[in-house]
């Protein structure tokens, strides 16, 4: 059972009370009071009417069913270039509780929601993959939740890995801020799975990612996986602009390349802080000490708040240069014969920014997907 996250109660939707996976979760959460409920929708609505419902919701698990629709294209954002990513929503909400988390505003349901029938998603994925048999699809569980943070009580990843073994046209990403990787160290690595870690500077992790392990721990977790032969990825997202950001991002990137075998890095993404304006009052109320929302954020073409373009370009350029510089250093230190070529891409950015940072722009999201997956082809 997870050491870090404590739950007060588990609500079990009557519809899934006899489901095999409900039994597994209840077995792993022994000691936590369980309540069988008839109407999950009403329970969710009830909590949403309470004060501090987002904070309270993180103390409760809701085990329920999802009637299809597990697999979706990543919502992305209009007017900005997306990367043709697909998301597998087998659970909703995250225990890590970062100040900037968009789920606070995006999800109407504050519970840590686990779909007992999540394995039904395999049929959906199968159908989708056979439709797209000539494409290589990137798919992951880290969009509406953290892929590994509650793996101890919601053990899905092994089954997903098993499922992936014979499927050639999908690359599956487990996206996390946790260091919950121990069990994967004993498994045989497979080529079409990537464990990716959201990274930030120590300052941002300490002040804004309140329940997440420090960046060093995340990097060490990635390093262990890489040593065992797994591919790993990194997401510098959200990149936050503050005094001394350059020094701090440089430091974390140096740390990353000093610990992780660069040959095992599948991709690195960069994304600056951005969010729907509706999130602002939520952050102000829940995290009054957080100052990230007071940066120089303007309303972008998609209506989201983001740093204005010259500032974003400056952040991306410098961080990209730190990455390049560290890859070169890594190659020199390891006397690597093969050129290490890690795809670095921008998340939800416009073409002008791509052009300024990388001197090229993917023509569309499919081209971008192919670029990200170049190491897999």
């Amino acid at each position, binding site marked *: 059972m997870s050491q870090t996250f404590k739950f007060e109660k588990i609500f079990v939707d009557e519809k899934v009370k006899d489901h095999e996976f409900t039994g597994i979760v209840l077995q792993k959460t022994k000691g936590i009071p369980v309540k069988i409920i008839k109407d999950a929708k009403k329970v969710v609505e009830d909590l949403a*009417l309470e004060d501090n419902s987002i904070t309270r919701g993180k103390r409760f698990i809701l085990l329920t069913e999802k009637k299809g629709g597990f697999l979706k294209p990543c919502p992305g954002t209009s007017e900005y270039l997306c990367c043709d990513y697909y998301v597998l929503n087998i659970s909703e909400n995250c225990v890590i509780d970062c100040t900037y988390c968009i789920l606070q505003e995006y999800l109407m349901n504050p519970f840590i929601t686990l779909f007992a029938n999540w394995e039904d998603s395999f049929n959906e994925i199968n159908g989708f993959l056979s439709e797209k048999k000539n494409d290589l699809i990137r798919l992951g569980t880290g969009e509406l939740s953290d892929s590994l943070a509650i793996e101890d009580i919601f053990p899905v990843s092994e089954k997903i890995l098993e499922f992936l073994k014979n499927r050639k046209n999908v690359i599956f990403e487990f996206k996390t801020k946790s260091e919950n990787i121990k069990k994967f160290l004993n498994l045989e690595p497979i080529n079409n799975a990537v464990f990716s870690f959201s990274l930030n500077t120590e300052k941002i992790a300490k002040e804004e990612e309140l329940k997440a392990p420090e960046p060093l721990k995340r990097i060490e977790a990635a390093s262990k996986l890489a040593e065992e032969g797994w591919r790993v990825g990194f997401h510098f997202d959200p990149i936050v602009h503050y005094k001394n950001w350059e020094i701090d991002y440089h430091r974390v990137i140096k740390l990353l390349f000093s610990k992780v075998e660069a040959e095992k890095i599948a991709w690195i993404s960069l994304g600056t802080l951005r969010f729907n304006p509706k999130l602002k009052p939520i952050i102000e109320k829940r995290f009054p000490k957080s100052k990230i929302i007071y940066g120089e954020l303007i309303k*972008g073409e998609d209506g989201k708040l983001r740093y*204005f373009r010259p500032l974003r370009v400056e952040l991306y350029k410098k961080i990209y240069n730190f990455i390049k510089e560290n890859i070169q250093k890594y190659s020199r230190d390891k006397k690597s014969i093969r050129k290490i070529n890690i795809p670095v891409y921008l998340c939800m950015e416009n073409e002008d920014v791509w052009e300024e940072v990388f001197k090229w722009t993917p023509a569309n999201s499919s081209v971008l997907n192919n670029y990200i997956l170049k190491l897999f082809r």
Partner: protein
Amino acid sequence: MRNQVLKISDIYIDDKRFLISYPLLSRKLMESIKKIGIINPPVLVRRNGNPIILCGWRRIECLKKMKIKKTLFKIFDKEDDLKAFAFSFFENVSERIFNPVEISNILNKFREFGLSDKNIIRKYLKFVDLIPNRNSFERYIRIGELPEKIKKSIAKGEFLVSNANLLMKFNHSSRLKLFTILKRFHLTASEQREVFEMIWEIMKRDEKSLDGIFSDLNLEEILKNINLKEKKKILRGRLKKLRYPIFSKKIDDFLKNLQFFTEGIRVHPSKYFESEKYRMEIEFKTWEELREKIKEVQLRIKDDR
């Protein structure tokens, strides 16, 4: 419920537990009473042996002002405050529209009488034309905490609830100070919103006091300006510089580069510089004038190289 004529002076008006109305005195109601009298008698309940007002605070206030000594009352026998208040609420809802301060009073009263927030939201918000969710509830519940001057302005519809909520972020003493000073700028609702947000965000980011920001803005100097439009422009301009220093510098640099163009040549960046592209606009009356202006643009581009 029974009817009874009572002396107004016999009513125990210190007990305001059921008071919703804000403000208490209504000139229109007084005029109406003068013309046609009171159609619906105020309703009283007995608490600790005293008759107290359940509905009709305004009517009684008007009668007092009109020096009327006695009137007909309805006496309601409910012992339970919550039930009595719910009765009063529905009696009012059918007859008038509540202003935001009164809505705040209603929500707070229901809370005081022991109703949970959840039940207030579910059962009552729709009757005051609010969406029954937590956000609507939170927007109104604290309005009553604002200083009288601000509440009066809200009740009159001069000051929006959304902007009052922005003001609620500030501490007690700052709310009135900010409201009073900014009133002198005659800002529109959207300008108020922008100004409140910027001041609050600078305070939070730079850990500054309101007085510190007023001093940075040199408010008194701005207020000396006679032209209202100019006053607003300077205030918002200075605030933007404090709130968005990097962005403001970019705009200043951009404008500096354009100052050499003669009138009628304008260069527009994309909104917030989100695109690298610029748009140029040249105004001309004759081909000759256009030729001259194009020549000027070409020279400028050459200089820039």
